[in-house]
């Protein structure tokens, strides 16, 4: 079995356990998802939405960005996302893994560390999941100074992604 298949199965199992079928769904840029439970939302304008937990000792956030129509193939677009990680200051790519969401959306999971300009001297962790939804890329970014190891919130949102009608 390929690592990609195992990863997709594991992601699907987590999604099933969350039982998000009945959870209220929101729409961002034509993409439906279930927002993190009890996290506070802030609209950053356009097709960007961000959530943070009320007690944020880990300095966590989850951001969803629905990108514009991409050019070329989806493989090329996903590769451009990998290249775009270079804008992060002191970026270090920890891992890059292909994935398939519960709804069958194909994408890539990037784990990176970086030192953001807005928090000098601190090393942040980011899990950047990007999936292809039609001719758009959907970015789900979990960013934290002290990340929660299981990335449960991120996995829940990613598995809830569905391409809107």
């Amino acid at each position, binding site marked *: 079995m390929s690592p990609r298949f195992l990863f997709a199965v594991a992601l699907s199992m987590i999604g099933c356990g969350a039982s998000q079928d009945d959870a209220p769904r929101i729409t961002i840029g034509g993409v439906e998802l279930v927002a993190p439970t009890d996290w506070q939302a802030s609209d950053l304008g356009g097709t960007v939405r961000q959530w943070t937990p009320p007690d944020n000792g880990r300095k966590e956030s989850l951001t969803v960005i629905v*990108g*514009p129509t991409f050019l070329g193939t989806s493989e090329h677009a996903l590769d451009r*996302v990998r290249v*775009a990680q*270079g804008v992060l200051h002191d970026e270090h790519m920890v891992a890059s893994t292909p994935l398939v969401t519960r709804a069958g959306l194909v994408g890539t999971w990037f784990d990176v560390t*970086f030192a953001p300009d*807005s928090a000098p001297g601190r090393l942040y962790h980011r899990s950047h999941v990007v999936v292809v939804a039609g001719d758009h890329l959907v970015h789900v970014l979990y960013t934290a*100074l002290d990340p929660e190891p299981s990335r449960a919130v991120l996995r829940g949102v990613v598995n809830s992604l569905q391409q809107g009608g």
Partner: protein
Amino acid sequence: MRSPVLKRALLSAAFVVVLVLIIVGSRRSADADDPSPPAGDPLVEPITGEVVMPEPGAETGPLNPFQAPAHDSRDVPVEALSPDEQAYVAAGVDVDGWSDIHAGFASATAQAAAEAAAQAAAHELGIDGLGDVGVVP
């Protein structure tokens, strides 16, 4: 007594006649001094001193930068220079450490190119603020 109008007309006519005679005379003198050589003579113009322009076909052409220049009797050997001048020449041909400088420039340009490619990719994907989005300070 003639009328003033007739007198003025006669003066004008005389002025025109004199003007025509002057023009015709100048054209004749110009024809006499025409410098055009007779047909068939070589176009040789006498000059003073030496010719400062090379003859056609005597141009040296572009120099080959990878070929040592031909020896010139006017060249000054390094040994004939003063110690200060010799030190200046020696510093100019000393390439020790140049590889480090070249490596530094190569590394810097490669890094700048990678950053530019990353910024272009982020802009193309609509995620320009990737470096700070979601960061809780």
